[in-house]
């Protein structure tokens, strides 16, 4: 069972999502508020319909469930990494000698889509001791606070997780 959504329905999907968002944020069910919401989401949906939905991929339900499951696991993994990152930075800030040894590293990624690269770049920034400086095509420029941080990034377990979610 694969849902058949017509190609030119970008506008309607955006419109419905924007309207749900309006209701969630305002949480008020008077007539005037709902009318404002309808008009407002129409304008937003009209101007951003092709930005909101950029590309579509056909995907089977089994794969969809598996990828959703992996994504949720990834969010927990990322939360853990964020907490570790902050403890690490807090330790280095509070240490009297500031044990930092910075370097800029550069490496190739196997990720293809823009969304996957964005996720990867954001994840790098949130994980211990590394921030993304720039992404040019397939090359990531990363600033690392310590050499251990650089090595653990180059080891590439995070990238493998993202490849599993976004590709194959």
């Amino acid at each position, binding site marked *: 069972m694969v849902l058949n959504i017509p190609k030119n329905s970008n506008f309607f999907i955006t419109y419905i999502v924007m309207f749900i968002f309006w209701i969630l944020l305002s949480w008020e069910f008077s007539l005037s508020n709902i009318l404002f919401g309808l008009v407002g989401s129409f304008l937003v949906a009209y101007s951003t319909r092709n930005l909101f939905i950029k590309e579509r991929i056909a995907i089977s339900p089994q794969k969809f469930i598996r990828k959703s499951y992996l994504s949720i696991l990834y969010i927990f993994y990322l939360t853990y990494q964020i907490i570790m990152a*902050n403890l690490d*930075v807090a330790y*280095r800030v509070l240490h009297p000698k500031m044990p930092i040894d*910075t370097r800029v590293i550069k490496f190739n990624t196997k990720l293809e889509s823009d969304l996957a690269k964005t996720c990867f770049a954001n994840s790098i920034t949130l994980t211990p001791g590394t*921030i993304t400086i720039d992404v040019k095509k397939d090359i990531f420029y990363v*600033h690392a*606070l310590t050499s251990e941080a650089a090595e653990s990034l180059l080891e590439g377990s995070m990238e493998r997780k993202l490849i599993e979610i976004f590709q194959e």
Partner: protein
Amino acid sequence: MELIDFIVTALLFGGTFFFTTATLGLLRFPDLFTRLHATGKGDTLGVGLILTGLVIYLGLSPITLKIIIIMTFILLTSPVGTHCICRAVYNQGIKPWKRR
């Protein structure tokens, strides 16, 4: 009731702790890139912990939903902001600090 109060206080305390270390890092670290390490990460987790505390304190209500949406957006946009500043400065040709 007592336990919830305890958890909320702990989360708020954690949030302010990470904000404090982020600010200290901003003052102590030697150059822009290392300072971004401190603030970019510290603010994300600081805000995250404080908002989680508020969510637990308020329980289930429309405001809780809004706070969760705010949290999601901060988590998405904070690294992008860090990345923007970093890239702009790096492309200006400013070299990162190195220990000698």
